[in-house]
């Protein structure tokens, strides 16, 4: 069992950033300015990463891929 006075480790800080830190450890965080500074810096990085946009390939990508895939013909032959 974790001692309530122990500083948060990196796993716990990640849990806190996700809103999943157990209440007992959240009490330590509320009382410890060192952990709060550390957790806040970590949360900023995690938030910046989570909010990154998703990218998509250009139009026609799927057609270009399928043009190069071998399709199993009913005859049993493989065609490009």
């Amino acid at each position, binding site marked *: 069992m974790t001692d309530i006075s122990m500083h948060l480790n*990196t796993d716990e800080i990640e849990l806190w950033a996700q809103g999943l830190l157990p209440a007992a450890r959240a009490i330590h965080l509320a009382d410890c300015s060192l952990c709060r500074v550390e957790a806040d*810096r970590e949360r*900023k990085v995690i938030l*910046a990463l*989570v909010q990154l946009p998703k*990218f998509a390939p250009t139009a026609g990508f799927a057609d270009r891929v399928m043009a*190069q895939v071998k399709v199993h013909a009913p005859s049993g032959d493989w065609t490009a």
Partner: protein
Amino acid sequence: MFSLLYRMVRDRALAEDLAQETFIKVLNGIKSYRPEFKFSSWIFKIANNAAIDHLRRKSIDTLSLDGAPSAETPDQVRATSLQLGDRAESPLDEVESRELGTAIERAIARLRPEYRSCILLRHVEGYSYEEIAETLDLPLGTVKTYIHRARNELRGYLDDRRE
């Protein structure tokens, strides 16, 4: 998967080539897929391997541009280096610098490729540590270490920028 590749190689056209290579391998090799393995993890594994292979090859090419390995003095390095002319920025380059030009994107680009894959899978794709370990064929402890180090480095880069 395309986002991962794009952030790994930071070149849209190349990321499309690698994504195409990945899908062709997936579709042509579908019989080798093991159902006990998550399908998306299998695709990410192939994509990540393609990106890492490319970056390793590129690193060898970059070294060769920096002078012959046998060069020992600055003069020998200069004499054996390839000189590249200025490269004009194309419209595609402009799109890329807009897309990947934010502080966090530039900080990600400075991470080691292994750290980059892990941190992107964890926080951008939302994979668990266990799924990342399975996808990248790495021990769970290594994945945790890479992610913690990557986040530390990102914090450092972002803090430097603010100072």
